[in-house]
């Protein structure tokens, strides 16, 4: 008998020590060096609602990725057909990812079909009709390829956003893909949420295009945009007033160079006005292209287009070698810095939309922790007092179990690297209320048995035995509810399910196993004749 009591005590002590062991890094910040090297140093991880930060759910607009792919293919196809002298008319991307064009005769038709077959395996012909002797053809990207493009777009977006967040300088960000085309971004301790969102959400597609100076801008504004041209807005900032104004500008749609050819982008301060600008350096291929493009287009204007608006369109004075360029515009220091980051990290392959945002400021998080601790303390004290008043000395035993329970919950949170959220704290408070239930069940049973005239020893034995099954059944059904809560919940609610579940399991150990040791000790070894219950 002694032996088993000793064994049980040993198990209890070991379990508690393990919990304490995992909790140590949370309790004290100055750990001895040997601990830091070899032992767990994870502290209890606080959720964004407690430490402050930003939670974003982004959706990658994959349809747009397919569309821009189709746009590129249209431009490629136009050039390829011009090169191989196939006659055609009105090639354009129509709805979604389909491309339509007209072929005047059967010779060009067969040449066209050969070209598609040989060089554009991603495209398939989905429609053809003869109108007034001309052949109208509709092409579309094969659906398998479309899926590939979508998947790739999500993967690239994930990577790009990760790069941007890393460079923004946030400690321990989490960027997780979710479902088909969603990305969750968690950034603890963000100070300027608006800036962070802007940094993550902008497409940052940098393009170099020629300004069309041959056609009339007025005509284009009226709606007669020449074939192969596009009308964009140029953003101008007045240096004195800082006011932004936009004016339309006609560009050739062909993209000469994109941000993909960049090697780096850095912020530099201009000599004349002390204004920050972003200085670009092309990679070797990009530099060669840039040199060729500038050489071929001297005296023409080259537009720098960022996300569909023209930042500047300087006249090319001479062939530019060396692969350097710069984007000017009245940036603030932060704007220039963020632009450099997004250009370095690369463009998003498709626009992203923010589906969900939850931001908690650090001061609110601090408040929540304080309130949580107060709730735990007061709830705990109230229950402890209640138990002692109602069950006298046995109440103390139940309270011991309650304390151990809280210790185990916190230890488990640290060990499993679970996240403590505000609802998680509510879960702990609730567990305080519910954990004593096991002891209430046992004690009420023992009281009943005592009333039947049993000795304390027999009453304890019967009480524990009969109550155990009830405790097991009732806790298990609650666990089932917690399980669904976990499966369904988003961040904070998951935290509630976690603490509730851990608490329930721990209470099976503390309220049933541990308290029994105390009772057995007094009844077996101290030969207790009356129970204070």
């Amino acid at each position: 008998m002694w032996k088993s009591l000793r064994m049980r005590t040993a198990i209890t002590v070991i379990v508690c020590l393990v919990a304490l062991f995992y909790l140590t890094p949370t309790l004290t910040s100055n750990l001895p060096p040997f601990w830091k090297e070899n032992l767990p140093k994870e502290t209890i991880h606080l959720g964004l609602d407690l430490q402050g930060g930003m939670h974003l759910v982004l959706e990658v607009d994959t349809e747009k990725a397919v569309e821009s792919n189709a746009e590129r293919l249209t431009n490629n196809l136009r050039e390829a057909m011009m090169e191989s002298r196939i006659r055609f008319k009105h090639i354009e991307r129509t709805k979604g990812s389909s491309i339509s064009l007209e072929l005047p005769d059967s010779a060009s038709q067969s040449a066209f079909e050969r070209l598609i077959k040989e060089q554009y395996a991603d495209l398939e012909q989905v429609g053809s009709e003869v109108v007034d002797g001309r052949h109208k053809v509709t092409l579309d990207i094969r659906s398998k390829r479309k899926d590939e493009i979508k998947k790739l777009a999500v993967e690239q977006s994930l990577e790009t956003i990760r790069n941007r967040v890393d460079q923004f300088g946030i400690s321990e960000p989490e960027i997780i893909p979710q479902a088909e085309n969603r990305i969750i971004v968690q950034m603890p301790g963000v100070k300027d949420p608006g800036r962070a969102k802007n940094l993550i959400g902008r497409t940052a597609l940098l393009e170099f295009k020629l300004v069309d100076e041959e056609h009339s801008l007025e005509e284009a504004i009226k709606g007669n945009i020449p074939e192969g041209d596009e009308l964009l807005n140029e953003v101008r900032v007045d240096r004195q007033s800082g006011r932004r104004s936009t004016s339309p500008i006609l560009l050739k749609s062909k993209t000469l160079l994109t941000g993909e050819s960049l090697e780096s982008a850095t912020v530099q301060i201009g000599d004349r006005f002390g204004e920050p600008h972003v200085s670009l350096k092309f990679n070797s291929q990009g530099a060669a292209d840039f040199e060729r493009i500038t050489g071929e287009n001297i005296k023409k204007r080259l537009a720098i287009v960022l996300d569909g608006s023209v930042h500047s369109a300087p006249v090319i004075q001479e062939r530019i070698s060396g692969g350097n360029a710069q984007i000017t515009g009245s940036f603030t220091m932060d704007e220039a810095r963020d632009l450099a980051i997004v250009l370095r990290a690369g463009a998003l392959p498709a626009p992203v939309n923010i589906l969900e945002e939850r931001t908690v400021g650090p001061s609110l998080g601090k408040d929540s922790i304080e309130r949580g601790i107060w709730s735990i303390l007061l709830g705990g004290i109230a229950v402890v007092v209640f138990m002692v008043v109602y069950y006298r000395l046995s109440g103390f035993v139940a309270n011991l179990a309650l304390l151990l329970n809280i210790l185990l919950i916190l230890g488990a949170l640290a060990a499993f690297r679970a996240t403590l959220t505000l609802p998680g704290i509510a879960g702990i408070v609730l567990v305080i209320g519910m954990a004593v239930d096991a002891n209430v069940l046992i004690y009420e049973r023992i009281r009943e048995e005592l009333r039947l005239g049993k000795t304390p020893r027999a009453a304890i034995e019967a009480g524990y035995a009969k109550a155990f099954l009830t405790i097991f059944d009732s806790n298990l059904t609650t666990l089932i509810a917690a399980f669904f809560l976990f499966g369904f919940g988003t961040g904070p609610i998951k935290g509630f399910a976690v603490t509730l579940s851990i608490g329930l399991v721990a209470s099976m150990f503390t309220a049933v196993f541990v308290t029994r040791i105390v009772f057995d000790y007094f009844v077996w070894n101290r030969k207790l004749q009356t129970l204070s219950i």
Partner: protein
Amino acid sequence: MELIKQNMNLDFVGKMKIAFVASVVMIVVSILSIVVHGGLNYGIDFAGGTLVQIKFNAETPTEKIRSAFKPIGLENSIIQQVGPQEFVVRTHESSSDTKGLSGKIDDALTTAMGKGTFEIRRVEVVGPKVGKDLTNKAIWALVFSWIGMLVYIAFRFELRYALGGILALVHDTVITVGALSLLNKEFTLTIVAALLTIVGYSINDTIVIFDRIRENVRKNPRQPLGELINTSINQTLSRTILTSLTVLIVVVILFFLGGEVIHDFAFALIVGVIIGTYSSIFIAAQFVTVWERFRPAKKRKS
């Protein structure tokens, strides 16, 4: 100390009819309230929208905030004071562009009251798409939790007990939601968490009684089921009330101290714990006697 005197034998089964009428009334009132309010008052988690919590440095009247929102077209949003100089602003609009409504609110307040006179402490934006997802998930979570428990109780006890238990759960959920609707409280994600907790808590209570019935049936197989159930409820009564009390103490503390985020959650729990305790005593086990009347168990070992 004892709350319930020993050998107390209250006639719960005899009061069954009153209890059933009371429950039906509560359920009808709940459903009526939901209908009259034109459905539940969905928070932004489900309906989509924007929530911004702002703390001002000085006393600020609601009208002043409202007039500050006029230029950005948000003067009709719900503005609720949640603490000294602290407000929560809710609107069902959401925007997916990166600046979003919170940025606009920030700008509008800065224009109206000056920089540094306030602090934006919390922003929640849920787009309509996510709202729909969350609604579906919430309904499934509740329904699956019911089914999960139904299966477990049917396995551990009998089907009729399981049906009684689940009936009590649905009863608790409907009445708690009804109470929220009566007070026009918002129905949010945390409320769903509260409902699932209530479900877990209420079934816990019910099982304790079922367990006692099962034990008593084994001991006295010849006694009529109604009597057995009544005895079992009485025997477990002090435990039922004690546990409910301790849980109630802590949720009341959460209600007063937990802060804005936890407030409604704690309120739902208070209602749920009370109704859950009531239903464990008056609905779950008693359903078994009703069932017995219509479909008597085939063989009871004699």
